[in-house]
């Protein structure tokens, strides 16, 4: 297999996910299969090919910097899991 369960652990950590042993084995198998299929891209000579990240020939899209109405703070906070004093509340970060 291209991807071993230990590597899945590393990828999961980068992705901010925690997995059970059963999931690690499953994803090792699935990711290996998918990457094996993707391996075929390496057969193509792309040395002189520019990458395309986006199909539209867009450069920077500018607009005038004008103040426009925005949503009220209460409305913006209404979907937050935890709110205090009009702010998003998160666990303590600085000791």
């Amino acid at each position: 297999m291209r991807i071993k369960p230990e590597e899945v652990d590393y990828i999961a950590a980068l992705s901010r996910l925690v997995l059970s042993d059963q999931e690690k084995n499953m994803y090792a198998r699935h990711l290996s299969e998918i990457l094996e299929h993707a391996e075929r891209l390496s057969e193509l000579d792309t040395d002189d090919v520019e990458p395309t990240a986006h199909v539209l020939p867009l450069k920077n899209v500018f607009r005038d910097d004008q103040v426009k109405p925005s949503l009220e703070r209460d409305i913006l906070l209404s979907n937050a899991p935890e709110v205090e004093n009009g702010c998003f509340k998160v666990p303590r970060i600085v000791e």
Partner: protein
Amino acid sequence: MELYRLTAHEAYEKLKKREVSARELAQSVIKHIEDVEQSIGAYIHLDFDAALKQADDVDRHIDEGHEVPLLGGLPIAIKDNMCTEGIATTCASRMLADFVPPYDATVVRRLKERQAVVLGKLNMDEFAMGSSTETSAFKKTKNPWDTDRVPGGSSGGSAAAVAADEAFFTLGSDTGGSIRQPASLCGVVGMKPTYGAVSRYGLVAFASSLDQIGPLTKDVKDCAMVLNAIVGHDPYDATSVSRSYPDYTSALIDDVKGIKIGVPKEFFGQGINEEVKSAVTKAIELFKEMGADYEETSLPYTDHALSAYYLIASAEASSNLGRYDGVKYGYRAAQYDDMIDMYKKTRSEGFGSEVKRRIMLGTYALSSGYYDAYYLKALKVRTLITRDFQRAFEKYDVLVVPTSPTTAFKIGERLDNPMEMYLSDVCTVPVNIAGLPAISIPCGLDGRGLPIGLQIIGKAFDEETILRVAYAFESNTPYHNQKPSER
């Protein structure tokens, strides 16, 4: 004929001539939903009271002597990854189960401005990642032609609702085939417009360089009408293109004389079901009888499109879905030790299995040491695939190919085998990679009586030629009139 069975343009004509009221249209569709939804499961959210209230507003507007705008008064529905003010928008994910957007997506606003009646929100694969609507965290949607089979995906609810007459039309989104493939499997019309033609503002992002919103409808004329309503530049989406958009209904001409059709052989190779090939080949012969010219051609990089697509789409998804951290909106785990632990538990509990798979695939493809081999390589192959299409469109007006390699498959059949599921999109992903428009229209039934889809691919911003070719086909064939209820 029952009102719910009408096409959108037929229903609109009746409303305009005051042969029916908006309330009568809504009541007919609602009654029908009550009869069939139990066995189809197209909707995540339905609000009949709100729909009837909107219908009454339209009737009052008509009574006051105003003309009802095109699409006004028609009961419709929206895929649940487009924001609807005050109505939960879940992406069929536990992560967003309680998310109530404070604003409407631009497409939703445009339909509301035309006084369309919103019935509810439609089921989908979680975060639009899937080809069968089975990855929804909430429910399975059944194919109206055979309820043991999937409706396709990820816009499976959008396609099933139209096929079962549970809405006059619906909106879906298409990142790698998510409008066209379910349209094909459910025997309805589905179009992915050119990248940039329709605003993505308020569409929950999956892969931003590929995502595009489009209509699922009962026939090609309805598709043109809905397209008219949703295209256009939007200052809230920097990738939406500012240009003049035509009236697409004037492209509906029953004439393909002189149209040059390219038939790329790579779309008829291994893995494409024989009955699908035969139906599409018959359709191409019919175009010839109707006066079009066709010729076999080649898009040599097609075979690499699927791999490039899954790397690019997953890489963009891994970045886009980084925002689900349990802070500003969405699910947050109940118990955690610290900030990082909160992120991890929130995401592990909130996301389903396919979404985690794509996030990890994308994270890996972007990670140090693998970026060049996977992500950058895929972007270069994207250039090669785009050039293939550019060369073809120097010679041809449209390309005609199958939409899906098979007809609807059984529920559960591909769920544990991701690579097999991904192959469902092999005929549709090249179009997203190149940002082109394409439509899927019904072109016959297989031996089991399941619908087969014909895909017509056009030049960038030339939806008109696609619609003309599709309309001519529809005008000379009976397939769009075949209904699952008559099996």
